[in-house]
């Protein structure tokens, strides 16, 4: 699970609503692997990023050189884009957990795939 994906995920435990974001990340196995740098793509993702959530996750993983916020003219700032590229796309959490900040419910991450299936009692219907 990349951090860009983590940035998108929210807890859907019953009654939690928007307080289910962001999920607290815990990682026991992380892989950092190079991904082809596509500045255009990264630039387009920047507006979608929830920065507080990203910084929190990056902090948990002890990542360095993480921009604190989008800078002016980021679309053309290669060094900024490369840093964001690294944080968002090159860090892969293989094993760990995601925790709902409101309910405390834990969702396991296994082989890089978060399991967010809820049991029947937990679902909102």
């Amino acid at each position, binding site marked *: 699970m990349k951090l860009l994906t983590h940035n*998108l995920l*929210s807890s859907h435990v019953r009654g939690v609503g928007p307080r289910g974001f962001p999920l607290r990340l815990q990682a026991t196995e992380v892989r950092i692997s190079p991904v082809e740098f596509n500045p255009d793509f990264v630039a387009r993702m920047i507006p979608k990023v929830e920065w507080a959530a990203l910084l929190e996750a990056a902090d948990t993983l002890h990542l360095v050189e993480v921009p604190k916020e989008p800078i002016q003219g980021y679309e053309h700032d290669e060094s900024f884009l490369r840093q964001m590229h690294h944080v968002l796309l090159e860090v892969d959490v293989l094993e760990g957990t995601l925790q709902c900040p409101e309910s405390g419910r834990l969702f396991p991450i296994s082989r890089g795939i978060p399991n*967010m299936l809820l049991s029947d009692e937990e679902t909102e219907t």
Partner: protein
Amino acid sequence: MAAVPGGRRSGPAAGARFFCTAGRGLEPFLMREVRSRLAATQVEYISGKVFFTTCSDLNMLKKLKSAERLFLLIKKQLPFNVSSVSKGKILNEMQRLTNDDPESWLNAISIWKNLLELDAKKVKLSQKNANPLKRKVGENDIIAKKLKTEQMQEIQENKECQLEKQIEEETLEQGNFTTKRDKSQEELQNDVVEAVGTHNQNDLTFRVSCRCSGAIARTFTAQEVGRVIGIALTKQFGWKADLRNPNLEIFIHLSDIYSVVGIPVFRVPLASRAYIKTAGLRSTIAWAMASLAEIKAGAVVLDPMCGLGTILLEAAKEWPDVYYVGADVSDSQLLGACDNLKAAGLKDKIELLKVSVIELPLPSESVDIIISDIPFGKKFKLGKDIKHIIQEMERSSHPFPGHFCGLAYPPAVLGTGALAVNRTEPLPTWGWHSSVGRQIMNESTG
């Protein structure tokens, strides 16, 4: 005619006439595709085949995504009249396919050779650049050897091809048509070496694959027709028949609508993708769905019931500057999808989640596009959840008014239903809905 009139040596530069077979319902996609990808002209659709003219080379032709197979056209003419005419007379008529206009055959074959030569040269050139020391080796050796190593990534085994059975409704009489499904790209290139090595047309070996449907199928078997044509070809051009490993394959389709003769351009159907290890949904349909969704760079695209990930694979290959997420409830499907992503080299473009479509762990309005093949048939159960599914899809995607585009097949054919939803722009809807598809549309707008 295979070649635009302009001389015997008309190669791709002059524009050649091709035809593709296409699955039912995919013809409009294919017609659009040949126009946009290949700048094709004289595009016409007749009964399961799309005919077109283009100057494109093999590399571009290979990229067609909504076609089943591609052929170079030798001849297209009116169907044989089988009513109240003796069998012998009709067989004579068939011989005229080869005898009446030998130029068209020779033209087509020379175009075909040109296409292959051009392709082989390109591969050889790229190899030469990579290995400057090996220039001294003999020309054919270079081609054969370098092609082998260069094409390693593109070698594919043909898996799970149920193509011919499902596309054409006609009576499939195999005749001389040996299904060489395991022929790999490497073997194709070796054939190229053989083909281009035959300077003299008389050296060519060939095999005829014949398909008969409609009235003519009631009078003749494909074998009979194949044999007659084969003999006529040997007589006319001196080629030798080789059923095992011919240089040249001739494909003939005789139906109530037309008589068509062509040369298959690739041994492996276009619909068999080199980059898909295990196909779920048929690749052509998956691509067509993705194309309907009008995916733009920078979009977030979700397939909440991704199965083996076929739709996402097709989409990621075509529109790479996009963030793709696939979700499924099944471990085995996700494992398969993971495998597929690895095999296709798309692990970095597509993320997977174990998630239920009726409970998407996504903030509202976080996704731009949702594409999915919704399982209707007997293989997967869906139950009464369809309304919840639509609701969840609506919630998680942007609230721009959009149409649902329903692609649903009669359960007898495929047993699946499919949806492509783009919430940022309205989409045209297509007219092949089954009653199930209509039901989705009603429930979603109601």
